């Protein structure tokens, strides 16, 4: 009987582990003096999934992540990370998570390999530090002191430190800040590989395309509150009536005639030189009007496409302000 009870107990535990959200935050509040950094943020992150906290600087992303990591204590609300309270159960939680804090973290005089070996020594079954150093393109600067590494190299070392302990869940705070496009691509591949191997990833970013490319779930925060959440597709397809038609042509064209020819409610703008944007209800007639106008102007409309709004459009609609990097 005892043995059976034991087995049933283990079974129940296993089920609980499968169903436990990787991160569950509700009604989180954190104030610093008179300013409120986090003002009621809440979300739940499925195990093994990728969640992006998206928002401008000062939105409360880092504070939220640091509360989840156990570095800060919430003033109100509850936080469960892998089913544990990060503040009271930190010692049990830390071996199971990987953390990439914003702005790196290493001894000023340490070499990349030494730092990674130290962090690896803290884990029971670490990845091979030498392999990780090479994979992240740090082999060429393996003997350079940390303080002389470029910002992007410091970021990559920090990422390696977050991954080396084979965690179940990693927190990546602005993982691609200061990285060149190649390194950013590598980080994206890493996140995809982590997800494929069952590692949950909570990342913060102010880059729309990063959230759109990586995340199963996007939580848009602004002013310490959640202003929208859902899959990238849900967020961008919420209001199909506000579609967009984009095309490229020579810059600086007078679009007055085009606006006159289009149905009421359509607007034309040129957000970047030569990149035109028509918003409104984009139906086949609108597409035909645009191409006819281009033909009249004697220009070829390149890269013409009708698409849903980008996450950036959604963000601007929701917060009415520009993203700042």
């Amino acid at each position, binding site marked *: 009987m005892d043995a059976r009870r034991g087995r049933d107990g283990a079974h129940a535990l296993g089920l609980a582990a499968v169903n436990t959200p990787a991160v569950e935050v509700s009604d989180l509040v954190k104030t610093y003096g008179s300013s409120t950094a986090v003002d009621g943020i809440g979300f739940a992150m499925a195990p093994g999934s990728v969640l992006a906290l998206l928002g401008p600087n000062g939105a409360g992303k880092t504070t939220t992540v640091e509360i989840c*990591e156990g*570095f800060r204590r919430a003033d109100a609300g509850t936080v469960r990370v892998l089913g544990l309270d990060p503040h009271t159960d930190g*010692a049990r939680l*830390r*071996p*199971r*998570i990987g*953390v990439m*804090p914003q*702005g*790196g*973290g*290493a*001894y*000023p*005089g*340490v070499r990349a390999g*030494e*730092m990674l*070996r*130290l*962090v*690896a*020594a*803290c*884990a*029971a*079954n*670490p*990845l091979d530090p030498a392999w990780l150093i090479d*994979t992240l393109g740090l082999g060429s600067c393996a003997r350079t002191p*940390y*303080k002389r590494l470029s910002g992007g190299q410091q970021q990559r070392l*920090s990422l390696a*430190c977050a*991954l080396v*302990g*084979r*965690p*179940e869940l990693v927190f990546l705070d602005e993982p691609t800040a200061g990285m060149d496009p190649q390194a950013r691509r*590598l980080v*994206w*591949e*890493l996140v*995809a*590989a*982590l997800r*494929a*191997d*069952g*590692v949950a990833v909570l990342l913060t970013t102010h880059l729309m395309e990063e959230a759109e490319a990586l995340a199963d779930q996007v939580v848009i925060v602004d002013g310490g509150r959640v202003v929208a959440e859902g899959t990238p597709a849900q967020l961008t397809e919420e209001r199909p009536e506000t579609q967009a038609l984009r095309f490229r042509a020579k810059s600086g064209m007078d679009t007055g005639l085009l606006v006159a020819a289009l149905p009421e409610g359509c607007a034309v703008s040129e957000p970047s030189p030569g990149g035109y944007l028509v918003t409104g209800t984009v139906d086949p007639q609108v597409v035909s009007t645009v191409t006819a106008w281009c033909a009249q102007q004697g220009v070829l409309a390149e890269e013409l496409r009708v698409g849903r709004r980008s996450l950036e459009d959604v963000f601007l609609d929701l917060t009415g302000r520009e993203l700042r990097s």
Partner: protein
Amino acid sequence: MSGRFAPGTFTPAPGAGAPARMLLTHARTEAMLTLRNGEQVLLTLLIPLALLIGLTYVTVVDLPEPRVDSLVPRVFALAVMSTAFTGQAIALGFDRRYGVLKRLAATALPRWLLVAGRVVGCLAVVALQLVVLGVTGALLGWTPTVGALVWTVVLVVLGTLVFGALGVLLGGSLKAEVVLALANVIWLVLLLAGGVVLTVDALPAGMAEVVRLLPSAALTEGLTDALVRGTAPALSTVVTLLGWGAAAGLLATRTTKLV
């Protein structure tokens, strides 16, 4: 998006490392970084070494003969103070600036190991310093007894812990540049007027009573008892050291910040 990483590369296998391995790796890293830092080597090794050799031959300071015998305990005390207080304070100030404490606090490294690693790293550097200074002293004619060396080890470990706590108290809460300035100034003041180069007995009466209560004077006196007078250190020196250590340790646990 696939190709670069074979499936299963990152399959979770979490868990904390073995405490002994964490401690060893952490302490080794700390000691190695100290020894690789030029300014630290100047402070911890070259200045005590220069004082030992210089004051043995240059008689600007009145010392009982043989001069090297009375200098060895003073440079030992100075070496402990340099590494455990000034070195530790400055390193901690900049480590905090660079976020390394936060980095390590985010790993499975338990909090007690975060402290223990630094302490063991510090003790390793102090041991190396004393070997170099001791061998140099021996070449200059210093001949210690075994009993004296036992007391020396006890006092050096105690001194390292006490000055280490003071170093953490200073380096754990202020800005790195402020720590750098204060740690060097305090080191110089303690060296000149804290009962190290000039022992308490050589100071004017009113000043001696105050200086006697400083940890620098207590450590120097204790080591002089052991190495020159061949006795156990006076209880008052041990009590003074313990008092400073307890006060600094308790305060430091409240004031030390990760960043």
